[in-house]
């Protein structure tokens, strides 16, 4: 809630907004007026993680440390709920107005976040336009996921998959498929040992495109021979993680891309 300054003293929209979380970065970049947002997290400027890297590269980028943020003299700081709590608490102690955002777990959260940022930044009109667009895109024939629809599961670094009540499950279901984590009743990001994945045997295994570029212990699991044998190319879908990481208007793209990829896969299979 914004403080009530009374009619005589209309709250001025903040002019030095700093965002320290990749997701709030992208939402703020979409909603803020030119010049209003002065710094975003360094991840927002990296093309491998951000869909607005070009826009973000025009701004100052921060690494989320309190000292760095305070020197920017922000009048509003946007952070994720799980963004370095120590930094957020310190900033609050120092009297900075920090607003935190929970990760988006469903489509409704995206609209709620857009609306909250719109209000905070005094850009309700821009936010409402984005929300309206989002609602139209998501309102498309929301066919009830068929009980025989293919099951799609994600598998990533360190054998993690995503459980139910997640943005991923919403996207998969909106694209017309069943979601592995939901079928298995997993909660949040869950470790799924390779054995269990093979037994669960989703029809298609979703892997994140950008992660294949990394070599290391964590991503080694994606090269396991058993994984290759059980899920050959025709049972894989490589998706662009940038569209899935944050709940933003780009999430609509994740749904569309998944539909297209699955359709082209089906063509190959025939």
């Amino acid at each position, binding site marked *: 809630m914004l403080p009530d300054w009374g009619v005589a003293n209309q709250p001025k929209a903040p002019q030095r907004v700093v965002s320290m979380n990749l997701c709030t970065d992208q939402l703020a970049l979409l909603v803020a007026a030119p010049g209003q947002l002065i710094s975003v997290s360094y991840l927002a400027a990296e093309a491998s993680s951000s869909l607005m890297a070009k826009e973000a590269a025009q701004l100052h980028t921060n690494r989320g440390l309190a000292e760095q943020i305070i020197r920017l003299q922000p009048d509003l700081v946007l952070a994720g709920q799980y963004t370095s709590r120590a930094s957020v608490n310190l900033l609050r102690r120092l009297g900075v107005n920090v607003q935190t955002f929970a990760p988006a777990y469903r489509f409704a959260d995206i609209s709620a976040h857009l609306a909250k940022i719109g209000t905070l930044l005094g850009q309700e009109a821009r936010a409402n336009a984005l929300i309206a667009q989002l609602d139209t895109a998501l309102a498309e024939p929301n066919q009830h996921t068929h009980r025989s629809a293919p099951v799609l599961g994600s598998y990533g670094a360190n*054998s993690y998959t995503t459980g139910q009540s997640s943005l991923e499950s919403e996207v998969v279901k909106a694209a017309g498929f069943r979601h592995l984590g939901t079928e298995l009743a997993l909660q949040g990001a869950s470790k799924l*040992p390779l054995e269990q994945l093979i037994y669960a045997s989703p029809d298609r295994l979703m892997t994140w495109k950008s992660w294949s570029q990394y070599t290391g212990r964590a991503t080694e699991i994606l090269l396991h021979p058993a994984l290759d044998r059980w899920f050959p190319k025709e049972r894989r879908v490589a998706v662009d993680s940038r569209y899935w990481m944050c709940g933003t208007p780009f999430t609509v793209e994740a749904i569309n891309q998944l539909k297209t990829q699955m359709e082209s896969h089906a063509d190959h299979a025939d």
Partner: protein
Amino acid sequence: MQIKIPYSWLMAILVALVLLLFAISISIGHVWLNPLDALWSGAGSISAADHLILTEIRLPRAVLGLIIGAALGLSGATLQGLLRNPLAEPGLLGISASASLGAVLAIYTGLSAAFAYALPISALLGALVAVVLLRALAGKSADILTIILSGVALTSLAGALTSLTLNMSSNPFAALEIVFWMLGSLADRSWVHVGMALPFILLGSVLLLATARALDALSLGQDVARSMGVNLNRTNLLAIFGTALSVGAATAVSGAIGFVGLVVPHLLRPLVGNRPSHLLPASALGGAAFLLLADIAVRFVFPDKDLKLGVITALVGAPFFFWLLHNVKKRTQL
């Protein structure tokens, strides 16, 4: 306390124990599978998923448990004999941690992506640096505590550098790996890892076993050993390269697993009558049994929590270490 048991019997019991634990290790997992079904009644009798899981996931895991446990047990027994130090062990002396550092450097400089064997080679170079350093230190002063404290310092240093390397990596998941490199795990390893570690572990074990005779003589004191015609330089070199090869390659695929090389030789020593030449092969088998058991425990106790192996070995090994430390102190005070 001496327990009378013929050496051949002891070895037969250990072999049987290893085989039993190996079979259990293959059977245990998310679902209990009987490997005999697949073996005796042909691949057709079990589902394709079971077959794949048995052959590509559980079998390499059990094989790694066996060879890595053997490498750790054997190198622990050799180091204890060579340094004449009851507390010597690759984990405590910082050899495993240095091997981890070598492995991490190979992975995050991209070397292992260009050349697969760069991973075990870099890890064994890390281990080699640690052993040479410790040997040099132990040469100057045979004081038990000096060596152990050097090992503590080396472990912290290697751990810090491993952490630094992982933090500098552009891979967003790298920092989370520190747990694996410090506590070790055999989860979801494959035949690729067996192929990577096995040749080095075999070669290293041959070198370590070749020290057996000399260690027998050395247990009577350095001068006696020399007068018996033991070439101490050769023994030193065999032990150093044997440890580096076997512990380095083991750590490259499993991360650092502590205490196996400490606990196993101590448990077996009274059973083999304090003869290093008998203790070395027995410790290899004992190490294999211990690590297989620990790897069964991580899957049995918390099947879905991906418990690290080092947690189990430390839970068993650390109290044992304290007990040993207490005893050693009493003995040196006398």
